[in-house]
């Protein structure tokens, strides 16, 4: 939008007023207002509250006009200043847009504004929160995962480099949430679970981000916490070209703490994949390039680039948008970590904590993201419309992890013999998501509409040749503390491959019928979907030993690596082989829903959805292995009702109930067996799916503009919740960690508050969510019985759900001046204490301490087309800290020396991750 502002001098009269939507009375932020006297036009832009003003005017006769995308312009409004004094004139624009509905979004208008999404929130039949593209653009975040933390009730789980990855919605961990793109569920590249890592989506590709917290019957029913719907940019009604380019860096890296980069291994495939499972691999089959190509970069430059081009052709019949986003970000963290021993001590107190290692780790993570999306819509006629949507996302994540073990806390360490462990690991994870959706809208007659989607999606994840070098040695000391000898305990080199592929073929269809019954238009919709999912995952790792005679002094190439026994190099002996699986899942769902007004102010949307799930899994295990394959099918009937009581044009009161489900992860059902931190972990083919009853109550106030006030409360009862805990399997002495359906229901309730208020150019936005969840699971208690000696029992312990924080909130201050072309935002995120890691032992859970992060971003218009923007993340260098709720002074003397700096008397700091500050600055071009 053009902003040209002329001001005359010497005169003192003013014309001011506001621009409103004629129908809704909402202020139209950003509307262009022009004032003509003679042949000299003056222009201004409506501010956040819709207001405009022209100062220092001569006493003349003026013509006032206003225009706004999606509205019929108002022109020639005469304002007479000849009589002296100021004038206030309000302008009312009529919308061109067809009515908003929950199925299709109006084709025109600026969908990317806060104002538009407030309208959507207000008009939506159920409880949801939306971030607009404008909001996202100004956010300090470049990925969808990080943007999600700005949504009320959402917290994020970070990767080792501090990048947000998964969203926890209302205390419900990622397994309880699903991810849609344009309303279509996409497969996950994750090898075990169904949830999608949200950091692979560049946020700039979004038109808006919806977090839907109450499901209607026409939505996929597998979300208990909520649904994240990524609505991608759609074709505009005129030529749009926008581009951006930025660069930046993390203050974590310097000459002293360089970024460790590496070239990925050229071995995309394992020896077994190339030569077959009977092939006996030797050291010569492996390439250590991922470790030997390590290079230090003192301050690597991160960069991002984006380009969006869209236009409409053939009398606006054909709309096309193409958008590309590229990010190359260098991040990292410095981590200190105490690893709990496999078993605590029974003395002096039951479950006295024991630590086996104290690690100092540095992570260097380079993330390359490429997002391409393209939408073509073709309006055949006013009754039929087709669109084709393509999305391709690719992410390469290179992580170099360097571990130095603090001297001496190894299990075999003593005061005169210190165990040290060094580890270098280079890992590349490549993830792809491709989605292609053909969508059709058809108006069959004036009461009947039909829309459909045909979808092909594929998600893949590859971890080619993760290379891991471990050196474990003992240093013998003399009485003076001088090292007298070094003994190589174990030099180990591991090459590991993982591949995962998940392909969906789906079809959706909805028939919407709008009869008039008893004088009101009722909407009846029926529809359904069918999905055919195909998934394969394979794993293999090769462990070589360094012969235990060559000490490591950065002489990696001289270590004579070999398999301990030659048979370990044979693919069919590989311990990972039994974790390989393939799954075919056929889902279908049908629903019927009706929307009507019970009386004028009360909108009722209700109905029922039936979801049928049928999956078949197969593993590579031979016929003698129980659980090697299986068929699992289940049907869920999910009723829901959503009431919206419109107190007046600006206030709603909502109440809803919905039933929903959460399907177990594919990898959880497979009878895998892999070594875990405490016990071996095994899969559970008998895992039942999770179901939930959800209640919501919300008051909404939309005073106009971007302002809003939402106060809500929710209650969830979760049946068959899946938790990981210790079980005996096969016999009394074989104990494993296994995903289990807890016998007890979990409950989760809380309250939410969202408030946004603008005062002219300055806005304040806060949201806060209180969540309270409880689940009871059996935990091990290891204690000293005076007669029977050391004993171990199961004891039930009640605790919050993993990842749930009691208090989460956001606060931000915004400055948006269309006049000087400057937008600024200071954003603060608070995530209260939450359960980070559930221990199999009573009272030994790890809690992440409250986390506070402060971010800043701004965008300043330089010319009509160019603007400069910047984003600063984690200004205060907030650390993620994890505590064990055990007074650190009670730990035994030997462990005391490895504790590091402690800051809470009643707790023990077991992990701290520092990410430092990330800066990004760039130029944006908009036509």
């Amino acid at each position, binding site marked *: 939008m053009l902003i040209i502002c002329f001001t005359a001098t010497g005169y003192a009269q003013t014309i001011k007023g506001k621009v409103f939507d004629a129908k809704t009375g909402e202020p139209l932020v950003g509307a262009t207002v022009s004032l003509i006297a003679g042949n000299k036009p003056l222009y201004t832009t409506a501010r956040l509250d819709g207001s405009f003003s022209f100062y220092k005017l001569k006493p003349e006769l003026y013509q006032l006009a206003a225009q706004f995308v999606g509205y019929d312009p108002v022109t020639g409004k005469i304002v007479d200043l000849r009589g002296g004094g100021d004038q206030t004139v309000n302008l009312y624009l009529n919308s061109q847009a067809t009515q908003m509905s929950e199925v299709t979004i109006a084709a025109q208008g600026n969908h990317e504004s806060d104002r538009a999404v407030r309208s959507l929130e207000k008009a939506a039949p159920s409880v949801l929160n939306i971030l607009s593209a404008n909001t996202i653009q100004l956010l300090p975040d470049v990925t969808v995962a990080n943007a999600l933390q700005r949504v009320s009730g959402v917290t994020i789980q970070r990767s080792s480099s501090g990048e947000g990855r998964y969203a926890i919605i209302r205390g419900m961990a990622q397994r309880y949430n699903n991810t849609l793109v344009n309303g279509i569920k996409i497969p996950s590249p994750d090898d075990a679970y169904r949830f999608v890592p949200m950091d692979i989506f560049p946020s700039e590709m979004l038109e808006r981000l919806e977090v839907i917290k109450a499901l209607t019957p026409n939505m996929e029913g597998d979300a208990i916490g909520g649904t994240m719907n990524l609505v991608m940019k759609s074709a505009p009604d005129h030529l749009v070209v926008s581009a951006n380019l930025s660069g930046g860096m993390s203050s974590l890296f310097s000459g002293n703490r360089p970024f460790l980069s590496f070239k990925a291994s050229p071995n995309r495939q394992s020896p077994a994949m190339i030569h077959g499972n009977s092939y006996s691999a030797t050291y010569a089959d492996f390439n250590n390039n991922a470790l030997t190509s390590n290079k230090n970069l003192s301050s690597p430059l991160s960069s991002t680039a984006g380009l969006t081009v869209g236009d409409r052709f053939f009398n606006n019949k054909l709309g096309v948008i193409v958008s590309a986003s590229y990010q190359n970000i260098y991040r990292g963290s410095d981590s200190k970590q105490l690893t709990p021993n496999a078993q605590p001590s029974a003395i002096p107190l039951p479950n006295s904590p024991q630590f086996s290692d104290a690690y100092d780790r540095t992570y260097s993570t380079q993330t390359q993201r490429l997002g391409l999306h393209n939408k073509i819509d073709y309006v055949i006629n006013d009754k039929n419309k087709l669109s084709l949507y393509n999305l391709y996302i690719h992410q390469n994540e290179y992580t170099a992890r360097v571990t130095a073990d603090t001297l001496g806390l190894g299990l075999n360490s003593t005061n005169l*013999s210190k165990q040290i462990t060094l580890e270098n690991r280079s890992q590349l994870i490549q993830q792809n998501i491709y989605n292609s959706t053909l969508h059709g809208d058809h108006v069959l007659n004036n009461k009947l509409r039909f829309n459909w989607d045909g979808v092909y999606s594929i998600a893949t994840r590859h971890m080619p040749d993760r290379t891991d070098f471990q050196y474990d040695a003992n240093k013998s000391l003399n009485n003076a503390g001088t090292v007298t000898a070094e003994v190589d305990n174990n030099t180990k080199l591991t090459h590991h491959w993982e591949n995962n592929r998940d392909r969906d073929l789906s079809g959706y269809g909805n028939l919407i019928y709008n009869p008039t019954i008893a004088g009101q238009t009722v909407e009846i919709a029926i529809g359904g979907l069918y999905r055919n999912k195909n998934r394969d995952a394979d794993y293999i790792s090769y462990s070589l030993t360094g012969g235990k005679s060559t000490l490591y002094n950065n002489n990696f190439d001289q270590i004579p690596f070999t398999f301990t026994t030659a048979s370990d190099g044979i693919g069919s002996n590989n311990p990972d082989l*039994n974790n390989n699986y393939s799954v075919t899942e056929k889902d279908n769902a049908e629903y019927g829903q009706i929307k009507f007004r019970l009386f004028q102010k009360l909108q009722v949307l209700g109905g029922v959805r039936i979801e049928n799930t049928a999956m078949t899994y197969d593993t590579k295990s031979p016929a003698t292995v129980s659980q090697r394959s299986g068929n699992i099918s289940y049907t869920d009937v999910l009723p829901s009702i959503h009431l919206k009581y419109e107190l007046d044009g600006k206030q709603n009161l909502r109440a809803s109930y919905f039933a929903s489900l959460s399907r177990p992860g594919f990898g959880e059902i497979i009878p895998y067996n892999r070594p875990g931190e405490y016990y071996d972990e095994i899969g559970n083919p008998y895992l039942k799916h999770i179901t939930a009853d959800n209640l919501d109550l919300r008051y909404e106030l939309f005073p106009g503009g971007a302002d809003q006030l939402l106060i809500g409360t929710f209650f969830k009862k979760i049946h068959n919740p899946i938790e990981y805990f210790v079980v005996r399997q096969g016999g009394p002495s074989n104990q494993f960690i296994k995903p289990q359906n807890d016998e007890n229901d979990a409950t989760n309730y809380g309250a939410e508050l969202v408030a946004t208020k603008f005062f002219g150019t300055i806005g304040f936005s806060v949201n806060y969510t209180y969540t309270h969840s409880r689940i009871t699971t059996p935990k091990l208690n290891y204690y000293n019985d005076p007669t029977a*000696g050391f004993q*171990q029992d199961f004891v039930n312990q009640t605790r919050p759900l993993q990842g749930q924080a009691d208090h989460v909130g956001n606060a931000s201050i915004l400055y948006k001046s269309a006049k000087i072309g400057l937008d600024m935002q200071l954003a603060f995120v608070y995530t209260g204490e939450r359960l980070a890691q559930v221990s199999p032992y009573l009272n030994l859970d790890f809690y992440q301490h409250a986390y506070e992060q402060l971010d800043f971003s701004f965008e300043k218009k330089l010319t009509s087309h160019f603007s400069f923007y910047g984003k600063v993340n984690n200004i205060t260098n907030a650390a993620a800290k994890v505590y064990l709720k055990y007074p650190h002074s009670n730990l035994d003397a030997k462990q005391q020396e490895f504790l590091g700096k402690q800051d809470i008397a009643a707790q023990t700091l077991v992990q701290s991750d520092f990410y430092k500050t990330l800066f990004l600055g760039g130029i944006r071009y908009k036509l």
Partner: protein
Amino acid sequence: MKKYIIPVVIVVLSASFSGCKKWNGEHTDIYNYTPPAANPISDKAPLSCSGGSSVVPVKGTMLSGKTYNVNDGCDIVINPADTLFMQPGVTLNMGARSSLIVLGTLISNGSKNQPNWITAPGLVKKDAPGAVTTAQDSAFAGHWKGIIGGPTCNLMVLRWTHVEYAGYTEGDATSKLASAGAGNQYSILFANYKGNFIMEDSWLYGGVDDPIRISAGKIAIFRNTFEKNGVHGGDCLNAKGGTTGTMAYNLFIGTATNGQKASNKGQATGAPQTNIVMYNNTFISGGYRQVQSGRGGCINYEEGAAGMFYNNVAVNCKYGFRVVGSPVADVAHLSYGNNFQYADSVSVANQFYPTGYITQPQQTDIPSIMTSAKYLPSGYKPGDIYDGSDVVRINNPMFLNFPLPTSGHALSDYNAVGSFNFHLQANSPLIGKGNTTIKPLIVVPLDKIYGLSDATPPGADLGCYQLNGTGNQH
């Protein structure tokens, strides 16, 4: 002449008396009926698996004097309700990569005159010190997988039985049949804390990782001989959380790490605390193939394990009797004494009380803890460095045939009995030094066949061989 008559008469009389006694005798040949085995297992064809399944279910009786062959890659499975009974004098030849999975009961009832063999056919033992390198020694190659006791195995008895050349990696299919671990390389696994594991008068030869892993169980391991156990690591008798019983009169030579280890790691809910009594065991040249530092070479108690160890002998072991301080053994319920150590070199003597650990020197230990001012000086605390030079090559145990001090070979080369003989000479310093007041911990049934046939009590002479002929019978 007269003076010779009486002695001559006495000699003649005594000779004829003893000669007449020799002529006495009684021979009986009474008809004795033993019902034939109900389910004799045929030795006509090899036990084979086919059709994509590796499993060969087996139950019944293997008959005296017969040789049974198991085909390569097959898993012999004794189902939970079944018993495999091996009469004395059975040879079971295990094919490459095969296994014997015991989900029910296994009784290998060999006898002194007719021992049983569970072995790999056609391999030649090269047992002279230094005859062959570890890499080239078939003892360490893991020819077949091992005897894998599943969680439902209620009784496993190995009596007068040779178990040889096992330790091949279990792999996915075998480990899932046995509810064990795919990476396991144990010659024998026992994993049921309610079950009984009895091994007496048997031999275990070769192996890859822990030759015997007791994940949990009630055990009695008496009078066995262990040779060449573990390639680069592995504790020969490795008892984990939930194991109770006795290990006594065993001879270990050339174990990779410890001969006997007790830990309460992984104690299952409902299982008892690990409590093992170890007495009169002999350890020769233990701990040398384990290159990791401080891992032990004879006896080791750690991580919550209780028990006692007395009357044991360690000769030229890389580390002495070791009690671990972190994670700490259950020292409040651990007692020990009357243990003997011999060192050819000062580096061995310097680790009689391993540096950094918490083994408390006892007044009854040999060599005496008062030997000299340098050896365990005043102010010595467990784990301190000390100078062992004054106890090198003292107290030669006087074995019947074993060169001490050794010469011509590294200590690590002594890893099989071969022609050596560790019985005691009459002038051995081990004689009469034993503590006979301690009691074995007998938790298994006492039975000639279905239990422990002889719970030999602690002996007066240190080590596994007693001058009076009791103890280890090999």
